[in-house]
């Protein structure tokens, strides 16, 4: 199991828990309990029940007929966009809210970029009747207004992160500061496979339901339980981790991760962590980071708020270093064009994050009977304004 986290929280050279002492009790409590809890029968029962009755799982594995025809290969979409609240993010928040209840926490905090994780967190807090505070960068609050509205409808308090680039990274800092200030009764629901151990592993396990379902569904549709390619966009990397998880040790499956190149790798406005990053430590984790020579984190840029993050989960750094996954970076304009294309070819308006993944169809060649599974990580409702402005629709 060379892609599993080790005892100390590392994936190869990446991971760990580089946290200030103030966070130690919280992280330690989690570390000591998370596996016990999420492997317990009670948790599994509650988790699966909520996933099925509340979230709407299993999400379909949809054979995209017109797209397949156009690219002369077999394309499946894993429809995480159909999850309650509109993205894969809720798989994780359902799991963590159950865990938080188990740990007797009375208050939830979270960071959010695109707002999907914020909405997913606010949703499970409403469901459980627990107080909820969401940190969101000022810039993201503006560009993802519908999700801000949703969080408020759900009764969450949305606090604007005014530091740094005022996007996801800064919202994460703010959330961690809140946690430092409220170490006893608060649980911090991180929204991706980032942050200190055990978060990357915990979130990966909760998102792993995606690949678990893909296995069953592919077997049913194709008579074999694995595809030739798995493709997902990577912000922090949670939807990707969830899609890859059960296939990591199956070397027959080629793994492709797509990150956001913003205005272009060399434009100075990008979020292509793998292409531009060096190993470093941020948000409690050792991983690849966009940073300058002095070790200051570079403010990332992507048209999609959910990929606008200068780091990447340590699992993904490891998949890159070991060459288990191929990393590709995609410009804003290619992603936007794919947002429109998927809408008009398949009637599915994807989140701009999600749209990035499809660009590989233009740059890689696939065989006629290759089976590709794309993670359709979220729907584009939150991005309508960006789409409309961009395409002048």
């Amino acid at each position, binding site marked *: 199991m060379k892609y599993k986290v080790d005892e100390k929280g590392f994936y190869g050279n990446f991971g760990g828990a*580089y946290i200030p002492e103030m966070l130690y009790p919280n992280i330690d409590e989690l570390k000591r309990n998370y596996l016990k809890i999420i492997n317990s029968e009670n948790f599994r029962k509650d988790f699966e029940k909520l996933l099925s009755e509340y979230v709407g799982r299993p999400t379909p594995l949809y054979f995209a007929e017109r797209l397949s025809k156009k690219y002369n290969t077999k394309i499946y979409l894993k429809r995480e966009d159909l999850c309650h609240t509109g993205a894969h993010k809720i798989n994780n928040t359902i799991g963590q809210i159950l865990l938080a209840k188990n740990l007797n926490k009375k208050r939830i905090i979270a960071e959010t970029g695109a707002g999907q994780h914020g909405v997913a967190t606010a949703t499970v807090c409403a469901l459980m009747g627990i107080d909820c505070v969401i940190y969101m960068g000022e810039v993201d609050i503006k560009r993802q207004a519908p999700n801000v509205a949703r969080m408020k409808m759900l009764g969450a308090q949305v606090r604007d992160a005014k530091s740094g680039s005022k996007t996801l990274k800064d919202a994460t800092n703010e959330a961690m500061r809140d946690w430092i200030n409220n170490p*006893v009764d608060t649980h911090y629901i991180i929204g991706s496979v980032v942050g200190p151990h055990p978060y990357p592993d915990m979130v990966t396990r909760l998102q792993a339901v995606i690949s678990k379902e893909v296995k069953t569904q592919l077997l049913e549709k194709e008579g074999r339980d694995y595809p030739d390619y798995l493709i997902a966009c990577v912000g922090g990397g949670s939807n990707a981790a969830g899609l890859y998880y059960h296939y990591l040790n199956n070397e027959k499956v080629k793994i492709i991760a797509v990150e956001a190149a913003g205005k272009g790798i060399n434009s100075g406005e990008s979020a292509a962590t793998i292409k531009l990053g060096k190993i470093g*430590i941020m948000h409690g984790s050792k991983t690849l980071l966009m940073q300058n020579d002095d070790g200051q984190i570079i403010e990332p840029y992507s048209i999609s708020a959910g990929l606008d993050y200068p780091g990447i989960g340590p699992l993904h750094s490891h998949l890159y270093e070991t060459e288990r996954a191929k990393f590709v970076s995609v410009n804003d304009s290619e992603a936007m064009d794919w947002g429109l294309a998927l809408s008009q070819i398949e009637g599915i308006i994807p989140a701009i994050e999600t749209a990035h993944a499809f660009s590989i169809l233009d740059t890689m060649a696939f065989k006629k009977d290759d089976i590709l599974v794309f993670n359709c990580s979220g729907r584009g409702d939150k991005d309508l304004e960006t789409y409309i402005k961009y395409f002048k629709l």
Partner: protein
Amino acid sequence: MNRIQKKLKEDKKILSVYFTAGFPKLDDTKKIISRLEKHNVDLIEVGIPFSDPLADGETIQKSSKKAIENGMTIRTLFSQLKDLRKKVKIPVILMGYLNPIIQFGIEKFCVKSKEIGIDGLIIPDLPVEIYIEEYKSLFNKNNLLNIFLITPQTSEERIKLIDKNSKGFIYMVSSSSITGSKKNLEDNSFKYFDKISNMNLNNPSIVGFGISNRETYQKVIEKSKGAIVGSAFINFIEQNGIECIGKFIKKFR
């Protein structure tokens, strides 16, 4: 014996001051150190600014941002402090997050620090376990004391582990909070100070976070070896400049 250890041996309470290198102006670093020493501060913590200082409150965040904009880097800091020990006698500690240090090169960082005459390091995001495994021998070799933080939530067992791996003092965070976030100390902070003092640790404790005036300082040093002033000092020099630092120090003792 390290300057910190010597200082701690003295039969007096410690007043330590934190400031961010390169703030308000890039070349204020040395001037501030000189003035702090002149006004009888016992110990100085020089902050290396980082873009994402997750354990710090607004004041220090802002000063770090400004310092980075001013051009402060570890390289610059080391060159500013090149001749530190020509004048400055009191212990000087560098405080900074791990990432800039790693990018500079951890070994080079330690060697340079020793060369200059740095006495200790505070690296908030370096937990004791990783310290022991990867950093301890290097720090020891360069006579750099690593200072660990503890909080009211830190378990006794862990305090003992930290104590065992400390050779200077323990940075006792006054309450569960980021720097500068609380106006006053809470009652149960004092219970916690008592608890620590009753543990009879090998290392003395110095209290940080939330020390902003004579009243808090006086109360705190009854229960500890000393106190660290950070945000309050940064606010002061931001508003009053660095000329009248003496006035600020007199507010404490």
